[in-house]
């Protein structure tokens, strides 16, 4: 008896063996079948601008932590291309559901980095309006936000809205049950969703080899019945082109995809971490040579898209961003303690009156 054909055909879902790369390490552009670049000069400049801003803003985050202004900070250094390229593939009406490391994606979505840092300063648990920016709350419980992204996408689909949701998470997160449940739900409901995994090689100290036996993270997609993509996450053009394809697929009603952007976390996991305990200087040097910004700079210079005036303009913008972050964060007072009782319930219990009164007395006694 002949076996019935499988749907979808697993062969059509498999990621390419080699990660998609458009810009090689020397900044030379290669065309890759199936990943046409639809970018204008202005877009190339914008991608560069977001990456440089992300790096500057990230450095400011680390500095503010060192100065005792932030309790902790999770750096994105080395992941600028992956983050910016992915988010740049989205349209205005689309949404991002981030983890805690997505300052680069936040910038692309127009979220004020100073607001993101309030979480790390401990001013409040979050300080940006997701509905105004289409950027969900930072999510620290690993992989949980992937389900919110899927639910949001299911809602949009039910409502007949043209809207794609991109969920960012890490290589470690792919081991969590919620990542599995999210990908499975999304596939079952054909939710307009893109799972964007930044494989930065580590989950704190644990390398990918201890996280999964799968050939690659992208291969997991096949098990859910959706396509998997792998790209060089240090190549902003590949990150963009692959994300664009997945976003267009979702927008066309063809369902979710899983992207594995292969990159590297150049900094410690957070400012509280000591990476010398689990990785070597050689490994770091190797990845340093694949810097996402340097290679794009070479390319843009060759194309005549990067002149001194533009560099100076971005530099000024980056400085202004950093200055504003310092201004907003430096010695920022903690929030009004009485606000603790706000926003927990729209209809708060009667006990809040007593507890608010207690706190007010304590404050007055100070």
């Amino acid at each position, binding site marked *: 008896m002949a076996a019935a054909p499988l749907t979808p055909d697993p062969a059509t879902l498999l990621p390419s063996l080699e990660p998609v790369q458009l810009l090689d390490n020397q900044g030379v552009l290669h065309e890759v079948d199936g990943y046409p670049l639809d970018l204008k000069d202005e877009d190339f400049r914008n991608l560069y601008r977001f990456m440089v801003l992300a790096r500057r803003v990230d450095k400011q985050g680390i500095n503010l932590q060192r100065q005792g202004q932030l309790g902790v900070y999770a750096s994105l250094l080395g992941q600028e291309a992956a983050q910016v390229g992915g988010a740049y593939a989205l349209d205005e009406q689309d949404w991002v559901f981030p983890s805690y490391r997505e300052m680069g994606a936040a910038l692309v979505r127009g979220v004020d980095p100073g607001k993101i840092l309030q979480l790390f300063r401990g001013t409040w648990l979050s300080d940006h309006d997701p509905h105004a920016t289409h950027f969900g709350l930072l999510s620290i419980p690993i992989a949980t936000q992937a389900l919110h992204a*899927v639910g949001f996408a299911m809602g949009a689909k039910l409502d007949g809205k043209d809207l794609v949701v991109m969920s960012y998470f890490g290589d470690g997160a792919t081991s969590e049950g919620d990542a599995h449940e999210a990908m499975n739900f999304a596939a079952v409901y054909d939710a307009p969703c893109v799972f964007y995994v930044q494989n930065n090689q580590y989950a704190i100290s644990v390398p990918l080899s201890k996280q999964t036996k799968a050939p690659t993270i992208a291969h997991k997609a096949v098990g859910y019945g959706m396509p998997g993509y792998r790209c060089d996450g240090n190549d902003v053009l590949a990150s963009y082109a692959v994300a664009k394809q997945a976003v267009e697929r979702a927008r066309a009603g063809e369902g979710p995809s899983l992207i594995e952007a292969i990159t590297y976390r150049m900094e410690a996991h957070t400012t509280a971490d000591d990476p010398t305990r689990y990785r070597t200087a050689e490994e770091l040097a190797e990845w340093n040579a694949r810097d996402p910004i340097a290679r794009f700079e070479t390319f843009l210079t060759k194309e005549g898209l990067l002149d001194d005036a533009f560099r100076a303009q971005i530099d000024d913008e980056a400085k202004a961003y950093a200055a504003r972050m310092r201004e907003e964060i430096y010695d920022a007072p903690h929030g009004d303690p009485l606000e603790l009782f706000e926003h927990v319930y*729209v209809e708060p219990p009667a006990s809040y009156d007593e507890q608010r009164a207690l706190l007010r007395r304590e404050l007055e006694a100070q």
Partner: protein
Amino acid sequence: MAITMAQALNTALHDAMEADDKVVMFGEDVGTLGGVFRITDKLQERFGEKRCFDTPLAESGIVGTAIGMAMYGYKPVVEMQFDGFTYPAFEQIVSHLAKMPNRSRGTVQLPVVVRIPYGGGIGAVEHHSESPEAFFSHVAGLKIVSPGTPSDGYSLLRRAIDSPDPVIFFEPKRRYWLKEDAELPVTTEPFGTAVVRRQGTTATLLAYGPMVRTALDTAKAAEEEGWDLEVVDLRTLNPFDAKTVVASVAKTGHAVVIHEAQVFAGFGAEVAAQITERAFYDLEAPVLRVGGFDVPYPAAKLEEFFLPDTDRILDAVERSLSF
């Protein structure tokens, strides 16, 4: 007309979906089958597969996607098939459903209802008879509701769906077939309003969900002893109606809290503390707690020895009165 709790809940879901097309329903087997207890019976037929649908078998996925859909603007009402299978969703409920409105400074609202058939007394296999309400009562940001009568089943579920805050709705599964003469729709008091189900003077029995019926039966049996027991149905554990509880205890001077869950660190401990803090001088005896023993929920043939019943409650009343 005599209606059952199950009919009341089903009608509430139906009426809520009719009243507001943002109300959507999903969970395991809730669509075609109408739920293992038929609480969502005919909803898919009436409102279509888009608004009432079966999900993959994944509780965290159900609650997590409900959060996303609520962020989008829907009002999801999701079902956990049984009490003991709520635990995979614990993280989504505790870390996100309860906290996101607060974390977002009110910019995100999550009008989600998580329905959980709970409690024992139906001879079920393990994991199908648990009372996990204390876990969730301990979480700020959630409202915790458990109806004891069909009328309340209807009205409280409608209120839960209308609530701008997330609600964990505990349905007393052994009372799904409990009947009451009532006309639907019916509107009972808002959340945070306990009700005195039976006036009495000797002692106060405090109960919710499945134990309301048991408490009323006990009060009836107590008449033989010459005791006139008052029965308070808490209805909502959060918000907690301290006023009604204290007024009753002030009248009787004796309080016995009843629930199916194990007594140690159960919700009864909270009720006892509330009474002690607010009505200490009205008390003529310590507040006593009656519940399941501090052991895992037992095999079906042993559950009658685990669950609180009239005898165990009357014994507690006697201890209180002779204190």
